[in-house]
């Protein structure tokens, strides 16, 4: 492919992208130096350059420089967990498309099931799946299909990879919930 059809960051006519220049540790003149620091985070650009370095979105180790123990205050931990979100896909047998929910938003099974009922406009059996309505199942870390409700809520949150609302008839083999 001809070089001039490549999309790159450099000025037209330059041979290397600025990123490449940084990786090979070649330095442009001090006023125009545009290096990426070795962990891939863009370093500051000079004042002549009107673009500013994009704020890195990934979590940077050790930044901001706050001591570990401060992270462990209860409120901060709760908030941090809330922030990260835990999105899983939800499929319903027979529905043409899937939905996605953040399990962290729910504080327990009944809250989750009520939300699913609202979302899919159906009724989910809570106790003893008799096969007449829908049963909630989920795929765990090992890829196995499990009935929702057997394990403590926290454990469910960390092991649930995907939710599946099964037609009652298919769920009979999964047995009782609580």
């Amino acid at each position, binding site marked *: 492919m001809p070089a001039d059809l490549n999309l790159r960051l450099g000025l037209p006519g330059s041979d290397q992208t600025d990123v490449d220049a940084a990786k090979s540790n070649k330095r442009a003149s*001090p006023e125009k130096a545009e290096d990426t620091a*070795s962990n891939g985070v863009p*370093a500051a*650009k000079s004042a002549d350059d009107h673009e500013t370095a994009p704020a890195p979105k990934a979590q940077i180790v*050790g930044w901001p420089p706050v001591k570990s123990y401060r992270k462990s*205050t209860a409120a901060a931990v709760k908030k941090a967990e809330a922030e990260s979100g835990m999105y899983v896909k939800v499929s319903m047998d027979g529905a043409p498309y899937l939905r996605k929910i953040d399990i962290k938003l729910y504080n327990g099974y009944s809250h989750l099931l009520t939300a699913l009922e609202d979302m899919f406009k159906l009724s989910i059996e809570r106790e003893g799946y008799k096969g007449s309505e829908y049963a909630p199942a989920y795929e765990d870390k090992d890829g196995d299909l499990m009935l929702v409700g057997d394990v403590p809520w926290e454990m469910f949150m960390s092991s649930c990879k995907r939710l599946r609302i099964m037609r009652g008839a298919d769920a009979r083999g999964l047995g009782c919930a609580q």
Partner: protein
Amino acid sequence: MDPEPKKPEDSPSNSGNSHGPVHPQSPFPDEALEKVLSFVDSHKDRSSISLVRKDWYNAERWTRSKLFIGNCYAVSPEIVAKRFRRIKSVTLKGKPRFSDFNMLPLDWGADVYPWLVMFAKVYPFLEELRLKRMTITDEGLELLAKSFPCFKALSLSSCDGFTENGLKAIASHCRNLTEVNIQDSITEDVGGGWLSCFPENFSSLEILNFSSLNGDVNFDDLERLVSRCKLLRVLKVNESITLDELQRLLVHAPRLTELGTGSFLQELTPRQYEEIETAFCNCRNLQVLSGLWEATSVYLPLLYGACASLTFLNLSVATTLQSGEFAKFLAHCPNLRCLWVSDTVEDKGLEAVGLSCPLLEELRVYPADPYDRDHLDGVTELGFLAVSRGCPKLHYVLYFCRRMTNAAVVTIVQNCPNFTHFRLCIMTPSQPDYLTNEPMDEAFGAVVKTCPKIKRLSVSGLLTDRTFEYIGKYAKDLETLSVAFAGSSDWGMQCIMEGCPKLRKLEIRDCPFGDAALLSGREKYEMMRSLWMSACSVTMKGCRLLARESPRLNVEVIREEGGNEAQALKVYVYRSVAGPRQDAPPFVLTL
């Protein structure tokens, strides 16, 4: 005292007279010199004294009782044991500061055990041990507990490696303990059971700080301990202690000067409320207050009676505190000199600080939610400005904010030209002045130009080499500099290495400084405590060159998985008379 010149043969320090140029005889007998020196406490002064002449060196080493070692690898236990014979108090610091932010692998080192073995042999009358960023194992704590019958004070700051078993040994064996302070030394394994191990007749405790402990504590045992230690003046409990439990403790210790509360969130009956309020009112000597986990407006008024003499208020973990209730609380603390808060108080809360705390000298604002990537909450330049307007004595600031402007900082330092410590952390890396979109160079330029006494500086935001030109040129008293995500080229770091005559500690991360920058400081590093450079453009070749040229420096590279072989991603350089580390783990290469 009549200074009688002593004959050289009688003097124990007669070594200086037979070699080299003849020195005039010392006008002071050794005893006089030693007596005078016994009043000199500061290790810096003692260091200067020891350099004057040989007999002064000897008098100093015989009389030194407090040992301060700022970098445990700069010297060895053997060298220390040979020079000093009568040490009663030791302060040892280990890991580089960035280890607090998880930037050092576990098992990097700074284990105090070899030091303890030496102390047990040579300093049997050791009374105090103060460690910062060191590893101390249960084995070490047991050795400590059993080797020093006079042992009084243990202080562990940012330390790790121990479990509650080690603390149990201390509690059970040290009969004369006056201080047990584990501050911010958190490990998962440290429960509270050790507090129950103090013998029933043990009553000498004056300082007890277990505020960072994660586990529960047997309250009855704690209460009994507090009630029999009549000299207790500092008590900082952990979050597991409730308000009504705190009240019972306060009843036994009304003479506290420093108090760290437990959780401040509890359903109280009116009678409990009254009892706690009374208990606080009886604490008339309180100067320092901390803790207050989950404090809210409902119970803050409980504290009003204890605040009149408060000089240091630490609300940094009270992350549920909002600006309104904070402002009301501040109105009761007119004598505050030092304030640590969470940024949940926001700019409005800081305005209240400016209005209510005219004597304020130190302010620290910590982020309640440091990992929130958008940083929509917290404080801005407005809060800092408000404080600077109302608190002219301000000289120490640590400020985590989501945005800043050059103009604001220029005004701030004009309002408060006495800054000695200016640590500004704009939380998004490389963020420019949010109004002008320019680099923050002029802000830090203003700091160093306007504040001649600046000793410690942490810079942040979008910065070019210009910032470092300013710092190198104007910051003549600067001792500690922290730099992250800043600079444009080697020239930036060169300006620092060629300026800043008093620089002692330099820590740099994620900056485009390479080998030329590293090597520009080769003559300076021996006069500094240490240099840390991580995620910069330094190579192994550059490090080897530096190591070759400087035999009195330890140039260490920390190797991590998956790194380019030629790059030196984490470099730690420090002066040492002990040579390369004997205990370096396999991932630390000394060049």
